[in-house]
């Protein structure tokens, strides 16, 4: 199918992870973050975000398939599509079958799908619109590259999606008479001109970050036979950072002159808080945590250092605890993926763009000090409400952002009075 070395994910400096062959930064995110982010973006059809999500996915599919041709010497269109489906499954997106796809298009099936099936766990009721936008866009991009066509050569029309109650995803690729113009991917993005190397991890803790990384390196985080990654009580995706950046920043661009941009940023931060609650929370009650990290944790502060050590394997950049008391956490993030993506796509920012990091940092403190995650509570909606509504819960503020030219991003988390 594909050589084992093709498009592997390689660890790079500053905690980044790049897909070899296309230099795409890869990051872990869970089904809860994917749900809340997509829910927010699709809240009003007038914003046109459904097509923006598909288009962002198309670019990633195109990049992936092109890398298979250019770097892994996969030659025929059929082989390229089959190999791209292998990569897709490995990253936790589900399974795709391109058997009926030709240069004119065809019906693609998705027997399993992260976006189609795994967002239900966050959803209160039935979905009113198909959630498999990523799948459809990615497949269109793969087909375009496989047939050596421009990225925007295919549209993908929905025929079925698990999220609408169907047994599998079905979408029809159709060749456009004129290819749609597409933005190009920004690859690994850019750091700021003042970018600095991260200092070593905090030493006044019982937590050994290197030992945690060594233990996690032995775990398999690739998709199972369904192309899904069930880990830590959530469904993970080993996703494209540029996809998240593109759709998040585009959403804010669309809202620029509506008077809604600033409040929409709060929703992006809250999606990060949800991510922390479910992924960090799931990790901190997992058997893996109990086996590897918890024995090192003698104090609540150790729990903070422990989860930060784990975060540093996600591809989100290097997080360093700069100051920590039960009242306040200051975290410095070197090469955070949101800043790198922003600078790579738009240049220097006029405002912080570290929404995920802000919500995530608040989530750490809320889980550990407000929610007492060390007592292994059930991570349900009631628990989320309790910590999110707590009068003495934590609020995070980005006080500097690498996207604005700073050497690193700084998030200050403080207990509300």
């Amino acid at each position, binding site marked *: 199918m594909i050589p084992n070395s093709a498009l592997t994910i390689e660890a790079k400096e500053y905690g980044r992870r790049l897909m070899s062959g296309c230099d795409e930064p890869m990051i872990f995110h869970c089904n809860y973050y994917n749900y809340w982010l997509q*829910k*927010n973006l699709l*809240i*009003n059809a*007038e*914003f046109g975000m459904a097509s923006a999500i598909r288009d962002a996915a198309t670019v990633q599919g195109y990049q992936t398939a092109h890398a298979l041709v250019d770097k892994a010497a996969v030659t025929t269109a059929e082989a390229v599509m089959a190999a791209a489906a292998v990569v897709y499954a490995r990253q936790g997106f589900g399974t795709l079958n391109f058997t009926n796809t030709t240069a004119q298009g065809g019906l693609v099936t998705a027997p399993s799908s992260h976006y189609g099936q795994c*967002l239900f766990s966050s*959803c*209160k*009721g*039935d*979905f*009113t*619109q198909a*959630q498999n936008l990523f799948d459809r866009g990615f497949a269109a991009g793969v087909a375009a590259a496989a047939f050596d066509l421009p990225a925007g050569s295919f549209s993908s029309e929905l025929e079925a999606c698990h*999220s609408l109650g169907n047994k599998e995803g079905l979408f029809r690729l159709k060749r456009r008479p004129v290819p749609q113009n597409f933005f190009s991917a920004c690859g690994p993005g850019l750091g700021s001109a003042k970018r600095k190397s991260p200092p070593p991890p905090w030493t006044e803790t019982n937590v050994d970050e290197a030992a945690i990384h060594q233990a996690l390196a032995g775990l398999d985080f690739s998709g199972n036979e369904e192309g899904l990654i069930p880990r830590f009580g959530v469904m993970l995706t080993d996703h494209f950072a540029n996809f998240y950046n593109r759709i998040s920043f585009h959403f804010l661009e669309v*809202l620029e002159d*509506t*008077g*809604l941009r600033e*409040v*929409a940023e*709060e*929703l992006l931060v*809250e999606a990060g808080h949800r991510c922390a609650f479910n992924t960090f929370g799931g990790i901190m009650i997992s058997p893996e945590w109990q086996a590897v990290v918890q024995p090192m944790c003698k104090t609540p502060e150790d729990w903070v250092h422990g989860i930060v050590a784990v975060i540093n394997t996600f591809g989100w950049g290097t997080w360093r605890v700069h100051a920590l008391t039960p009242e306040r956490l200051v975290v410095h993030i070197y090469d955070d993926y949101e800043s790198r993506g922003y600078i790579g796509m738009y240049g220097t920012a006029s405002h912080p763009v570290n929404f995920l990091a802000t919500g995530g940092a608040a989530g750490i403190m809320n889980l550990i000090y407000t929610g007492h995650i060390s007592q292994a509570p059930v991570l349900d909606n009631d628990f989320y*409400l309790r910590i*999110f*509504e707590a009068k003495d*819960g934590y609020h995070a503020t980005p006080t500097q952002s690498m996207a604005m030219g700073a050497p690193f991003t700084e998030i200050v988390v403080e207990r509300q009075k």
Partner: protein
Amino acid sequence: MTLDDFFPGNMGRMLLIRVMLRLRRPDLAKMNKKSRLDDSLIKQIKNAIYDVNKG
């Protein structure tokens, strides 16, 4: 009904933002949260809450 009645607490704040986006009504953020809302706006808000709470 007031905005505070519809959108209590931090979760209420998030729901209010979703409703603002749904209705394209940035002005809701500037309204007095304790003022009585007119019937027409109450109906709009109720419908928007129903919509944004769906999947």
